[in-house]
C-alpha cells in the first residue's frame, strides 16, 4: 500500500518536473553554444549574462514587469467580461446574431496593431490605450469560444429544459453557461496570452514604462542583454498567467476533473 503510494507520488513528481527539465536542457545548450562559439553578446547573450543583467537592477525590472502585468490583467478582465456578455447576447437573440456578428468578424479582421496609434489619439498616453489594445486583441478568442460553448448543449438536455417549462433565464444560468464553461476556459487561456501581446504592442507604440518600453529603449542602445532580460520575464509571466487560468478552471469545474468513483465499480 505505502509502496504503491510512494510509486504514485514519484510518478507525479516526475511528471511535474518534466517541464523544468526541458527548460533546463534548453538553457544549458544555449549557454554552451554561446561560450563555445564565442557569440558576441550584442547578437545573442548567454543565459548567465541575462541573469547578471537581471540581478543588477531586480527592483527596477520588477516594477516594469508589474506595470505590464497590470495592463495585461486589466485588458484580459475587460475582454473576458465583455466577450462573455456579447456571446450571450448573440446566442440568445438571433436578430443580434445576424445584425452584429458579421460586423464583429469584419472588425476583428483589421490588424489590431494598426489600431494602436488610433488608441493613443483617443485615449492619450496613460494606461488606458494599452488596456484598450490588449482588450481588442484578446476579446475575439473569448467571444468565439463562448458562442461555441453556449451552442454545445446536448439535444436531450435541451428537451429536458423544455419539458420542465423553465424560463430562458433559468435555461441560460442553469444549463447553457455551465455547458459553455469548458470552452470558455479554452478561450480564456488564448485570451490571456493575447492580452500580454496586446500590452507589449501598446507599450511599443507609446510608453515610458513597462517591459515593452524596456525592450524598445534597450534595443535603441544595442543593449541586447537587457532586451533578453525583459523577454525572459515576459516568457515566465506568460507561463504563470496561463497556469493561473488552468488553476481557476480546475476550481470552477470540479465535476470535470473529479476522479471519485463509488465502491464496487
Amino acid at each position: 500500500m505505502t509502496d504503491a503510494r510512494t510509486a504514485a507520488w514519484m510518478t507525479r513528481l516526475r511528471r511535474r518536473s518534466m517541464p523544468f527539465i526541458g527548460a533546463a536542457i534548453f538553457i544549458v545548450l544555449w549557454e554552451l553554444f554561446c561560450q563555445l562559439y564565442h557569440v558576441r553578446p550584442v547578437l545573442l547573450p548567454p543565459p548567465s549574462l541575462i541573469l547578471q543583467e537581471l540581478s543588477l537592477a531586480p527592483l527596477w525590472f520588477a516594477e516594469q514587469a508589474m506595470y505590464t502585468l497590470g495592463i495585461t490583467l486589466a485588458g484580459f478582465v475587460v475582454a473576458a467580461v465583455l466577450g462573455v456578455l456579447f456571446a450571450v447576447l448573440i446566442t440568445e437573440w438571433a436578430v443580434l446574431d445576424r445584425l452584429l456578428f458579421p460586423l464583429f468578424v469584419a472588425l476583428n479582421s483589421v490588424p489590431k496593431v494598426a489600431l494602436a496609434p488610433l488608441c493613443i489619439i483617443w485615449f492619450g498616453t496613460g494606461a488606458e490605450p494599452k488596456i484598450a489594445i490588449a482588450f481588442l486583441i484578446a476579446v475575439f478568442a473569448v467571444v468565439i469560444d463562448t458562442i461555441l460553448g453556449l451552442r454545445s448543449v446536448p439535444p436531450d438536455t435541451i428537451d429536458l429544459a423544455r419539458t420542465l417549462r423553465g424560463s430562458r433565464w433559468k435555461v441560460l444560468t442553469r444549463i447553457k453557461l455551465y455547458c459553455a464553461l469548458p470552452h470558455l476556459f479554452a478561450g480564456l487561456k488564448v485570451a490571456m496570452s493575447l492580452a500580454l501581446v496586446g500590452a507589449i504592442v501598446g507599450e511599443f507604440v507609446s510608453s515610458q514604462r513597462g517591459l515593452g518600453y524596456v525592450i524598445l529603449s534597450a534595443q535603441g542602445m544595442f543593449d541586447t542583454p537587457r532586451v533578453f532580460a525583459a523577454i525572459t520575464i515576459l516568457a515566465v509571466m506568460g507561463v504563470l498567467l496561463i497556469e493561473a487560468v488552468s488553476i481557476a478552471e480546475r476550481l470552477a469545474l470540479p465535476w470535470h476533473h473529479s476522479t471519485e468513483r463509488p465502491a464496487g465499480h
Partner: protein
Amino acid sequence: MIVAQDVAKRFGGETGVTAIEGISLSIAEGEFVSLLGPSGCGKSTFLRCLAGLETITGGSLTIEGKPVDGPPERLGMAFQRDALLDWYNVLDNVLLPADFHGERRSAYEPRAHELLKMAGLTSFAKAYPRALSGGMRQRVAMCRSLLLDPRLLLMDEPFGALDALTRDQLNVDLHRLWERQRMTVLFVTHSISEAVFLSSRIVVFSPRPGKVIEDIKVELPGERKLSVRDSAEFGHYTRHIRGLFESMGLLHD
C-alpha cells in the same frame, strides 16, 4: 386523458419523411401503456409530440381536452440518455424541476431525499453524476422526473442503454412505483418482454410510416416479480407479439 385522432407527423415539408400516420388512440388516466415497435417506427416521435417537443402535422392530439401546444403541465419525462446535468450533484439534479418551476428549494428537499431513499441512492446525494454507473444515473433521472408528482410520465426507451441485469431491476422498480402512484405512463421500448412485463396495455407500431397494428390489453397478476416471465400467460403474450413482428417481416427464423 389522452386522445389522439389520426395524428400524423412529417419532417421537412412535402418531400420530407413521414414518421407517423393515422395514429388514433385514447388513453385513460392511470394506464401504463407501452409503445412497442421496431426502431425508426415513429413511436418516439409520437411520444415527443405528446410532450410538446414536436408539433403534429395532421390530425388532433389532446390531453384532458386541450390540444397539445408545448409541454403540458405536471409532465415527467425520462430520456434514453439520462440527461443528467454533470455540473450538479445528484440532489441538485433531482431538485431541478422545482428550481425551474420557481419553487423554493427547501420546500422540495424532503421529497427529493425520500425519492433518493426509494431508489437506494441516499449515500450518493452529494456525488456528481459522472461518479455513478449507468443504472444509478437512470435512477437519478427517474427521481428527477417524479419530483413534482407528475400525472403523466413519458419515458423514451429509458433503459435502452443499460445492461440486462440492471434493466430487469429497474423494470421491477418502475412497476412497483406505478402500482403505488398510478400515474399515467407512456413507455417507448422495442423489447417485447419489457413491454409485457410492465404494461397494462401494449400498442404495437408498424415500421415507418408508423401505424398502430394492434392494441393489446395485458392481464397479468398485479404485483409482478421477475418470475412472472416464466408463466404461461406471459409466454402467450410475447409469442403473440413476436408473431405480429414476424408477419410484418421484421423477424424470421
